[in-house]
Structures are given as C-alpha cells and as structure tokens.
C-alpha cells in the first residue's frame, strides 16, 4: 500500500514537472469557456458573414446549445488531448529504462499499473470538473441551468468514456513499446467501436453510445436507464483492460 501511494505520488510530481497537468488544465479551461461562448456567438457570426441582402433567420441561442457544444468539443478536442498526453505514460518509461530501478527494488509491477491508472483518472476527473464547472458557470451567466441533474448525468457518461480510453491506453502501453503505436491501437479501438455503432441493434451496448447520445439526456429524449447496457459494457472493458495490463506487464521485458 505504501509503495502504491509512493508511486502514485511520483506520478503526480511527474505530471506537474513534465507540464502534463498544466496542459490538461489549460486545454480544458479553454474548452470550458468556449462551449457557452461558441453557442452564444455562432448566430451573431453567421449573421455577420452571411452575404449581403440574404435574409438569415437567426435562432436565439439557448442553454441547450451550450451543452451541445460541450458534448461536441469535449469528446473531440478534449479526449484527443487526453489521449496524446497519456500515450507515452508507459512506453516512455520502457524506452528510458526508468522502471528497472523501481522493479529491482521490489516494487510490484501491478502496483505501477494501478498507480498510473489512478493518477490518469484523477487528472482526467480534475480536467473534466474544471471544464464542466466553467461551462456551467457561463451557461448560467447567459441563460440558466435548468435540468442540471440530466446535464450532470450526461457529463458522467463522458467521464466514464474517458476512463475507458485511459484504461485502453494503459493496456496497449503494457503490450507495445512505442507511444505512437499505443495511441494508434487505442484510436483503432475507438474506430472499431464507431464501426460497430452502424449496427442499430448493437448501439445500446456500445461504449461510444456514452459520448454519442448522451446529449439526448438533456433534451429528454433518453433517460439514464437507456445507458445501463453501455455503462456496464464500458466498465467491463475497463476491468478487462486493467487485468490485461497487469498480466501483460508481468511478462514484459524491461
């Protein structure tokens, strides 16, 4: 347990000193503000850039538009940045050889996996909270926060999907030796999920349902129980990835 705390602490220090924390917070800060701002300004911009003489119907932006922006920007830009920031978490250490001193000092290999997973989830949670907090604040500033419970539920779906990505990064990080390959495999998995999403009968079980359809929670088209299947599948994937990481990493040549 002490070793786990120690290595998690090391991951924290590393995140600060290698600018990982800073980058994540900065990006999610900007995203958090951009969501309501884009929603607010899009109609104005459209009106401004429309050819002269053309009559443009300008819908008045609403709080919903702000959350639509949130669910567009966070899964695209946000998760992309998250993945590239963590893609080298394992492979960077193999390539440098920094695990050798730790493991030969009796640090259990699975402790490394657990500590890395803990810290990546923690940083992701902090980033998402910051982003969500800012979006909520400015959405309330321009409009209102009606239906906050549903909004929160939709954000939890995104959060879980992020954890799924982090666990897959960890798994591929335990399998391959190259950070780009690790990123590609994780991206490949997401592509597979999206391809499977073309089969309507499987959609409800697909983890991408969490990010693809969660804004329907806010509009009221769907309720949380509609997501039960995809949540369970995602959690199963997370657990499998972690168990797989432990098993593969135990056999890894360091």
């Amino acid at each position, binding site marked *: 347990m002490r070793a786990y705390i120690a290595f998690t602490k090391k991951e924290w220090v590393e995140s600060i000193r290698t600018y990982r924390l800073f980058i994540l917070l900065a990006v999610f800060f900007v995203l958090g503000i951009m969501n309501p701002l884009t929603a607010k300004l899009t109609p104005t911009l459209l009106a401004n850039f429309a050819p002269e003489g053309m009559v443009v119907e300008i819908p008045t932006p609403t709080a919903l538009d702000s959350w639509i922006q949130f669910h567009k920007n966070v899964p695209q830009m946000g998760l992309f940045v998250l993945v590239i920031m963590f893609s080298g978490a394992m492979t960077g250490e193999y390539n440098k050889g920094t695990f050798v001193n730790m493991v*030969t000092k009796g640090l259990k290999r699975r402790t490394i996996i657990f500590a890395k997973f803990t810290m990546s989830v923690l940083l992701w949670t902090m980033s998402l909270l910051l982003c969500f907090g800012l979006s909520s604040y400015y959405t309330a500033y321009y409009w209102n926060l009606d239906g906050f419970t549903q909004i929160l539920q939709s954000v939890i779906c995104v959060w879980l999907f992020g954890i799924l990505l982090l666990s897959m990064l960890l798994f591929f990080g335990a399998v391959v030796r190259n950070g780009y390959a690790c990123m590609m495999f994780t991206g490949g998995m997401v592509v597979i999920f999206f391809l499977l999403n073309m089969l309507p009968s499987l959609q409800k079980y697909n983890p991408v349902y969490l990010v693809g359809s969660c804004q329907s929670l806010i509009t009221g088209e769907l309720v949380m129980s509609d997501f039960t299947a995809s949540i369970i599948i995602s959690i199963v994937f997370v657990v499998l990835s972690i168990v797989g990481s432990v098993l593969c990493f135990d056999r890894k040549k360091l």
Partner: protein
Amino acid sequence: MNILEVEEVSKTFGNQKILDGVNFHVPEHSVFGFLGQNGAGKTTTMKIVLGLLQADHGTVRVNDQKVTYGQTKTNRYIGYLPDVPEYYGYMKPKEYLRLCGEITGVSKKEADKRIEELLHLVGLEKANKKIAGFSRGMKQRLGIAQALFNEPKLLICDEPTSALDPIGRKEILDILYQVKDKTTVVFSTHILSDVERICDTIAVLNKGKIQMQGELSQIKEKNKREGVEVEFASKDAKERFLEEMNQRQIVYKQSEENPLLVEVRGKDQEQLAKRTLHILAEKEIIPVRFFCMEPTLEDLFMEVVKG
C-alpha cells in the same frame, strides 16, 4: 554460504545461444568479478538473476531462494546498478532516493538517515540539482546509492566503470571497495585492471560457458609463471650472457618476437633472479630491462578466451 548460485542456465535469443549451461556461485562477503568480452552474455546473466529476463533452462538461487521471472521476491535481497542507470530526470537525488525508500517500505526517519549516509558515501551530498543535469559519473554514483538503499545482501553492478573516465572509474571502484564489508559485490566488466584492483573471486564467461572460476589469488597461484626476463642493448651483449648461462646449465628461452629478449624460467624466482643478476654483474653487461615475471590476469584471460 553462497549468496548467489547459478546452475545450468541457458538462454537463446533468436537462433543465437547466448548462455549455454552457465554455472557459478558467489560466496558471501566477497567481491566477485564477472568477466567476459563485450557481448559474452554478462548482462543477460545478470538480468536473469534479477528476474528481468526469463532463462530457457536452469535455476538461479539468491540467498537460497529460487528466482522466478516477473514477480521477483528475491529482489529484496539485491541491489542493482544497471550499466546505464536511468532516473526520473525531473527529480533531485534526494527526492529520488526518498521514492526508493517509500517503495522499499523503510520508515521515513530511517530513510532520511540512509539518504544522508549514502549521499555522503557516493559524494553527492552537495548535488542539489535535477538529475537530468548530471554527468555520467554522477549518475553512476547515484546508481550505487540507490542500489545500496535497501541494504542488500547482494549488490549487482553491470559494467559500472566502462563508460567512465579514469577519475570516475577510480571513484566508483573506491566506493565498491568500501562497501564490501556490508554486502557482497558482484560486478561484471571487461576491464581487467578493475578486477585486479578490488576482486577476490572471479568467473570468466566465454562462448556461453563459464571457462574459469575461483578465488583470484588461487587462480594466479595455480597458473604461476615464475622467472625473469632480461632485455639486452645489443646482440653481442646477449651472446656473451647466453654463453655463461650455457656453461652454468641454466635453462632459458629466447623470445620469438624480440631477438634481444631472453626469458629465464624456474621455480624459485628469488634464487633465479639472484643468479641472473650475478652473471650480468660478472660479465659487466648492463641490460635495458630486467623484469620479474608475474602471472597477469590478462594472460589468463587471453588464454581462456582464445583457447
């Protein structure tokens, strides 16, 4: 008691057999030199001992416990200094050693005490900057400090001196020599003078097998080549010397490479040297060089590696 026992260990990479039934043992409280040419399989052997690589056959015992690959409990007896030790460059040496302390489960108070001692031992107590800015020698010294952190019964160093300049090498060897009372030191090298300086036991690895092992003093004793070498300034001087030698029926050998060199061999080196010097004095010959032969590790090593 043997702190480390390696029995019939084999390892193949691809179709290249690196280790082919390696056997050796390291007695406690010795400084064990593990010799071999570059690529002989020294690092492979050490990684197997540490459970970082899996052997195809054979067993390794550390402190009478079998080493298993992956989850290596035996590693708590071992301190390891890799050939090129790597650290988290964004940490300072104290922070790094503190991390080592937390991983090994030493209490904070004890850890602080050890950190002070170890940094003093390796001469890094004033190096309060990020490890990223360290020289190779400093990294190597920090490597010894981290390897000794859990007070290991066995300290394994992989080529600790190879990449260093003469001053750095001397520093490392001095540190290793200092710690031999507290632990057993195994170190691999291809630099023979390092071995002669601090090792008491050696093993030579060549072509996947241990070709020679034992106490250095005994090995030298067994392979003793006693005698003297005399090098002359001219052929004439040599002829006059040999004439006298023939007369006194002393066995000698002329060198094939150097026509001015004569080797005089026998059992009692002192007696032999006295008689040779006597002849030289009597004939008033002043040699260019007079030399009491000693078996060098280099000779032994070359014999093993070539033979």
